[in-house]
């Protein structure tokens, strides 16, 4: 097995470890209502990812991944612009639901929309990576 393949394998292990640590610390933070636990876990995860990439010198991004990312971002933008315009029309001409919501509810929806946007990007990224 070449050094590069070996490096990639070790990097992947660190990569997965960083994600597992970050996600579980965020979950622990949510369950214990302690934001610090989540922040520390995510911080350690980021440090692990950066140091692993520097140590093993693995190419994870190149022009093709940039192109995939660009297409995914463009698709997400289109979906959200059309979706938000549809919501606006619905609210303005059919049923005014935004005015009836409390400030906290609007905040919750905005937070959920941001997360949905990230998942939408992940989905499109996976699709274009499969296509390209």
């Amino acid at each position, binding site marked *: 097995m*070449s050094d*590069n*393949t070996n490096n990639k394998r070790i990097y992947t292990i660190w990569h997965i470890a960083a994600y597992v640590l970050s996600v579980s610390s965020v979950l622990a933070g949510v369950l214990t209502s302690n934001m610090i636990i989540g922040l520390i876990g995510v911080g350690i995860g980021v440090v692990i990812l950066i140091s692993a990439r520097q140590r093993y010198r693995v*190419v*994870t*991004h*190149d*022009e*093709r*991944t940039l*192109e995939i990312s660009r297409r995914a971002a463009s698709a997400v933008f289109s979906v959200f612009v059309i979706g938000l315009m549809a919501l606006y029309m619905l609210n303005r001409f059919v049923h005014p639901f935004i005015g009836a919501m409390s400030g906290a509810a609007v905040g919750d929806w905005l937070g959920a929309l941001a997360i949905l946007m990230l998942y939408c990007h992940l989905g499109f990224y996976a699709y274009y*990576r499969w*296509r*390209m």
Partner: protein
Amino acid sequence: MKNKLKVFRAMHDLTQEDLAEKLGVTRQTINAIEKQRYNPSLELAFKLADFFGVTIEELFIREHREDLAEPEAVQ
């Protein structure tokens, strides 16, 4: 766009992983170019051609040239 990347890679006895490492791209990119699912940038195309010591035209083949309009003759 068709290409002879797989042929040249085989002639140099390289794996996709080896070639990707030498050119600083991912193995998936080399695979996508070979399978004609991705057309590389001009920069990467030149890098590939330089690496194998051939011209871009020897490595990449355009399939449809009829879409190119003939330049008009200057009077």
